[in-house]
């Protein structure tokens, strides 16, 4: 569908309705990327090879960079980094519950499957934002796409390798069964604002369309490797998008803001501050 939509213009030109819809799209982008990166840190010191330590660290750095781009875009509306992150409450966040789950101890397949399910979804989502009616999203999407290709490639190559080993295959299948319902929450709505996101052309595909494309892609690849994709599963609850999260998120959030709180901070100190 290549309908020409009115460009929404710069941040200060948005109507209240437009800003609300733009923010809703930006928050899920920022929160998903940020929390995915936070969780990756677990594997940075535990991956099975030095090469994978690097790969995981690199993925995490990419996602942090992307989260920064999206949070920057949110800050154009007057929010501050302090309010968005360090002085936040756990239920301020709208990331999918997939990214907040702790990794299963010692289960590398868990990390790979999660990365794969997430990164394909990310790819599908970015494609739907390429022609966004909001320039800030459009420009950043293009930049991020160039840095995401490698993530899917890495996950695919590990899955191909694991599929040749019986025990590894069992772990992959178990992780897939466990994580799939959580991955579906990536395509859950945050509320009635969803209709505006589509109507205003902020995103050019619906959540259902994106879920369909994602399912098709991962099913084709995983089935080919001999895995069974539980396509009749229902999205896990809570979804995260509804500001409700698993207890795991509350623990991670606590860790995330602890340094800021323990230091009695009231602003995020910047590198190279003048004073």
């Amino acid at each position, binding site marked *: 569908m290549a309908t020409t939509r009115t460009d929404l213009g710069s941040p200060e030109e948005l109507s209240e309705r437009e800003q609300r819809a733009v923010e809703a799209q930006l928050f899920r982008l920022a929160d998903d990327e940020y929390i995915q990166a936070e969780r990756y840190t677990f594997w940075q010191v535990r991956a099975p090879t030095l090469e994978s330590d690097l790969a995981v660290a690199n993925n995490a750095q*990419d996602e942090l960079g992307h989260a920064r781009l999206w949070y920057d875009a949110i800050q*154009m*509306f007057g929010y501050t980094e302090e*309010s968005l992150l360090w002085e936040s409450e756990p239920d301020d966040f709208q990331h999918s519950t997939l990214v907040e789950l702790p990794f299963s101890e010692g289960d590398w397949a868990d990390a790979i499957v999660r990365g794969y399910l997430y990164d394909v979804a990310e790819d599908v989502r970015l494609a739907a934002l390429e022609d966004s009616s909001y320039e800030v999203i*459009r420009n950043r999407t293009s930049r991020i796409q160039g*840095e995401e290709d490698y993530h899917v490639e890495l996950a695919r190559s590990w899955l191909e390798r694991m599929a040749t080993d019986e025990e590894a295959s069992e772990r992959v299948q178990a992780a897939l069964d466990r994580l799939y319902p959580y991955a579906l929450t990536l395509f859950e709505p945050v509320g009635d604002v969803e209709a505006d996101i589509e109507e205003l052309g902020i995103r050019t595909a619906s959540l259902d369309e994106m879920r369909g494309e994602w399912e098709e892609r991962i099913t084709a690849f995983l089935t080919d490797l001999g895995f069974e994709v539980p396509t009749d599963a229902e999205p896990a609850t809570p979804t995260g998008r509804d500001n409700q999260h698993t207890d795991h998120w509350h623990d991670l959030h606590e860790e995330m803001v602890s340094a800021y709180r323990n230091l009695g901070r009231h602003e995020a100190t*910047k590198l190279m501050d003048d004073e």
Partner: protein
Amino acid sequence: MSSEPDGPEEYDRPRADAEAAPCGYTDYETKERTAEEVPATGEGAEGLEREVWAALYEVEDPEMPVSVVDLGLIYGLELDDGKATIDMTLTYSGCPAREIILEEVEEAAAGVDGVDDAEVRLVWAPDWSLDLVTEQGKEALREFGISVER
């Protein structure tokens, strides 16, 4: 649960800043540029503008001894009544040296006689790629040991 749709149906991320509103934040991508229009290198610049470009040339990427101008990171320079506004991008969104680089560029421009104030606007379009590195920059990268051949 209330009967009005302001429960989970209603979208609203709680705001810690009650007064949050679009403000004078200057990071807007205000100018649409095509891929052909970037980078800006100051070629043919004269007078004060030329001096600002010379100062920008002195700023190197923290990880390699190559000027940010030769890396093709500067997308635009405007001088208006003693104020320099520089549009620039970064090679990588996750660049950990973002603040250092931006600060150095601002300081370099502000250090030029005749410039009272300098501001860097970070922009993300058009995409940056190795193609934007100048010939001089490619030479510097080769000397540093980075292959730039495609």
